């Protein structure tokens, strides 16, 4: 606080405003910090040699202590040849407000950029990802190795000149589909094994060693165990691989754990087993094509994923002249869906946390019973239970149906028929509150849960902010940061709700935060119901008609973020190239909460027993579809 006062006295710039911050930085670092003046862009451009200096100023003097997203863009062919690799950072104040976007550029053939891990530990995994996918060398990064791909992988797949195995054309729609569409199966044209490229100097017989070596390096093996023992029992150091097929990891996730006896010394997450280069697919796709792909990220909360992507594209569309905002009813339905999704996700995550604690599937199924009712609603409205694909740019797919009604089609089909509003009112005002009461009565005082959760996996608030933790993980540590409040979107400003926070930052706090968040969601939903009644029959598409199937999006950048159940989900989308607007995104980046939350896993697990790792991981609540992308 004293810092800020002194700056206010030094300069005339109002650093509470984003413009003031930018002016202050430009004044303090002349010729190093410049305004990003490209059309449709915002924020500042920083000379890469002084990046760490400027970032430290931002964090310490200006209060931008929360790094949300760090990602790279390959501007080959669009910008100057010596500056076509760009790193984009989005930093926020933990007290709320808009993003300070800062960028730095490097030549493509020698992309060396100083690492920001010391300033923002949150950039650790994200820089590794940028190194993996773009080949950017981060000078000073303590552990710079591939994170999503394996060590022997040839090339950096997100670079624009990299072609995937079943490459057909630069962008969709492919010309071979119509009017002369000769059907073929990709795997027949390019049978398995023929699509793998190795570096020239690659020794296939060493294939296994390479990837394993890199994982085990830096884990402190080869230490004289006799000297470690202390005076108690002699213990041995042991490396345990938990996963990728361990049932507690909720998917294909692996933790390389160094144990001293049964105590964890180091823990390193190894991921990428479900990697499919979602972002490269996203760049081949048109803007609209990406919508159903976002369902597949966090497949438990696809409605929230849809909204985040729609927000990012709507921000870009708003840069154009012919933009109409989303109609009110569509916003109401979006919030309805997002809050129901939050309940769906938290029911699942609490159920699984209890599974990890050993309450095998009984509480899980009780939660699933309620979840089922919401999924039935999703199915009737959007057409699918999990892969909803419901949001569109400027609206939603279709208004709510009058009745949730099934039709007899197959043998032994049993039909159901409910009034939509009655159904919603039933589950929101009666069924779910009753269930939450019962669930809390069932679990909150349970001695086993309390013994296993309280004081385990503690994440102190300062560390949570530094590591860029989001969602219930951050709020469990006592930081009341929620995108719905910090940078409101949709109709959240007019809704009345609280942000639950924990006190100690342990597993039990995360569990109670989730429980209370479900209650807050119900509170929001109870405010949504009268709004749904009031807006009945109103338009759900911007401009009153269905959007185009291949919209032309104005050039520029945008970062759309939503508070997904698992935390802040951000989409960084760049439209570049044709000044009249583009049909395919130049860059499509997903800043996934499950991915960044894992940064803190190692620190949280240190010193605990091996059985606790399972619960700590369960309390973060990751989905591998989103972690690996």
């Amino acid at each position, binding site marked *: 606080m004293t810092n800020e006062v002194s700056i206010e006295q030094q300069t005339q710039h109002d650093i509470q405003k984003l413009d003031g911050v930018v002016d202050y930085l430009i004044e303090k670092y002349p010729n190093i910090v410049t305004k990003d003046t490209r059309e449709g862009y915002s924020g500042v451009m920083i000379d890469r040699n002084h990046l760490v200096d400027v970032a430290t100023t931002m964090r310490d003097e200006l209060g931008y202590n929360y790094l949300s997203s760090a990602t790279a863009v390959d501007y080959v062919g669009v910008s100057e040849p010596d500056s076509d690799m760009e790193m984009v950072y989005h930093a926020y104040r933990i007290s709320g407000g808009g993003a300070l976007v800062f960028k730095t550029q490097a030549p493509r053939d020698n992309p060396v950029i100083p690492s920001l891990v010391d300033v923002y530990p949150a950039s650790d995994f994200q820089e590794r990802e940028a190194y993996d996918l773009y080949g950017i060398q981060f000078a000073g990064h303590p552990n710079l190795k591939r994170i999503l791909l394996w060590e022997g992988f040839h090339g950096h797949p997100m670079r624009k000149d990299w072609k995937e195995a079943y490459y057909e054309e630069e962008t969709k729609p492919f010309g071979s589909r119509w*009017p002369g*569409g000769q059907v073929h199966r990709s795997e027949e044209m390019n049978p398995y094994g023929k699509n793998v490229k190795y570096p020239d100097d690659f020794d296939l017989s060493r294939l296994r060693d390479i990837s394993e070596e890199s994982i085990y390096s830096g884990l402190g093996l080869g230490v004289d165990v006799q000297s470690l023992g202390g005076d108690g029992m002699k213990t041995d150091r042991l490396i345990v691989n938990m996963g990728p097929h361990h049932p507690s990891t909720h998917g294909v996730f692996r933790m390389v754990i160094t144990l001293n006896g049964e105590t964890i010394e180091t823990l390193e997450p190894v991921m990428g087993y479900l990697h499919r280069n979602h972002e490269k697919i996203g760049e081949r796709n048109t803007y609209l094509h990406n919508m159903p792909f976002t369902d597949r990220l966090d497949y438990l909360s696809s409605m929230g994923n849809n909204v985040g992507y729609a927000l990012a594209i709507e921000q870009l569309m708003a840069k154009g002249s012919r933009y109409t905002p989303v109609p009110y009813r569509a916003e109401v339905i979006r919030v309805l869906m997002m809050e129901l999704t939050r309940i769906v996700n938290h029911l699942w995550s609490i159920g699984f946390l209890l599974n990890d604690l050993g309450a095998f599937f009984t509480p899980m199924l009780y939660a699933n019973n309620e979840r089922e009712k919401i999924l*039935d609603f999703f199915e009737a409205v959007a057409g699918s239970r999990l892969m909803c694909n419901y949001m569109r740019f400027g609206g939603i797919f279709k208004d709510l149906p009058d009745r949730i009604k099934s*039709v007899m*089609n197959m043998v032994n089909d*049993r039909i159901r028929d409910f009034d939509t509003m009655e159904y919603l009112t039933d589950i929101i005002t009666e*069924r779910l509150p009753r269930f939450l009461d019962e669930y809390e009565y069932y679990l909150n005082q349970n*001695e086993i849960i309390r013994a296993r959760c309280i004081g385990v996996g503690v994440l102190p608030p300062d560390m949570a902010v530094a590591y860029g933790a989001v969602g219930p993980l951050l709020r469990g540590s006592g930081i009341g940061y929620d995108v719905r409040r910090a940078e409101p979107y949709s109709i959240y400003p007019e809704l009345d709700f609280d942000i639950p926070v924990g006190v100690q930052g342990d597993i039990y706090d995360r569990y109670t935060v989730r429980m209370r968040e479900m209650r807050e969601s119900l509170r929001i939903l109870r405010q949504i119901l009268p709004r749904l009644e009031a807006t009945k029959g109103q338009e759900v598409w911007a401009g009153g*008609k269905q959007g185009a199937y291949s919209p032309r999006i104005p050039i520029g950048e945008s970062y759309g973020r939503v508070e997904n159940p698992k935390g802040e989900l951000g989409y960084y989308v760049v439209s570049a190239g044709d000044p009249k607007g583009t049909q395919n995104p130049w860059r499509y980046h997903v800043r996934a909460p499950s991915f960044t939350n894992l940064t803190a896993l190692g620190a949280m697990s240190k010193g605990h027993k091996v059985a606790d790792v399972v619960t700590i991981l369960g309390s973060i609540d990751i989905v591998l579809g989103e972690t690996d992308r």
Partner: protein
Amino acid sequence: MYGQGIFKGLVVTFKHLINTYVDDLRYGWRKYSKDTDNFETRQGPKSRGSFTVQYPDEKIAVPERFRFVPFLVVEDDDHPDRPGHDWCTSCGICAKVCPPQCIWIIRSEDPVTKRPVPEPEAFFIDIDICMNCGYCAEFCPFDAIKMDHDYEMASYDRTTTHIHDKEKLSKPFSYWKRIAPTTAYEEMEARGGWEHIDVIKAKKKLANAEAKKAATPIPVAEAVATDAPPVEVKEELSADERKAKREAALARKRTKEQGEGGE
């Protein structure tokens, strides 16, 4: 007292155990008979206890908007003018809007003039690639491709059976009307009739021409209004106006038919 929390939990578990049998007590054997009305209660928001379904002896019927691998709409076999005719005009919008690009279309050509004919020569969907997003059905301007409700598509060999051709994809229009009555009705209202939109347009055109021939001094405004494509007009009209317009169109059609009969 230590252990109280666990005891409370066991009470809840016991309640759930009892609830599992409540349905059995309430409905008895009727729960398992084919024509029950209690399914809706057991699988609705007011249900208590067991929520499982004895698949495949009982299946939860899917809602109207449910989407699975698409099918192509063709005219019914008993259609008077064009039985079995494709609704698809091979415009290619579905192939372009398909996110995983799993639709292949070959457009028909007139053998003599080499000009495209609004009808697909071949139509393939690779159902292994299809991600059931529903875009093809959503953006088809002719209501010719729709999402199916038949989800039991397992087969023993994916390499030979999973590329569906036109024959396998085609299903009659009456099937669509049966599985999605509400949606089909909404689409009918938007088109202005149960026929394919091209047929409706052609009939309208014919009616206009007839009307022009019959009575030359037509008010200009009306002629413009009827010449405009119906798709654009409908969006500006409210339900009542649309209804009035449809009735007017039907009336015109009737007079035209009578006129033809008279000649």
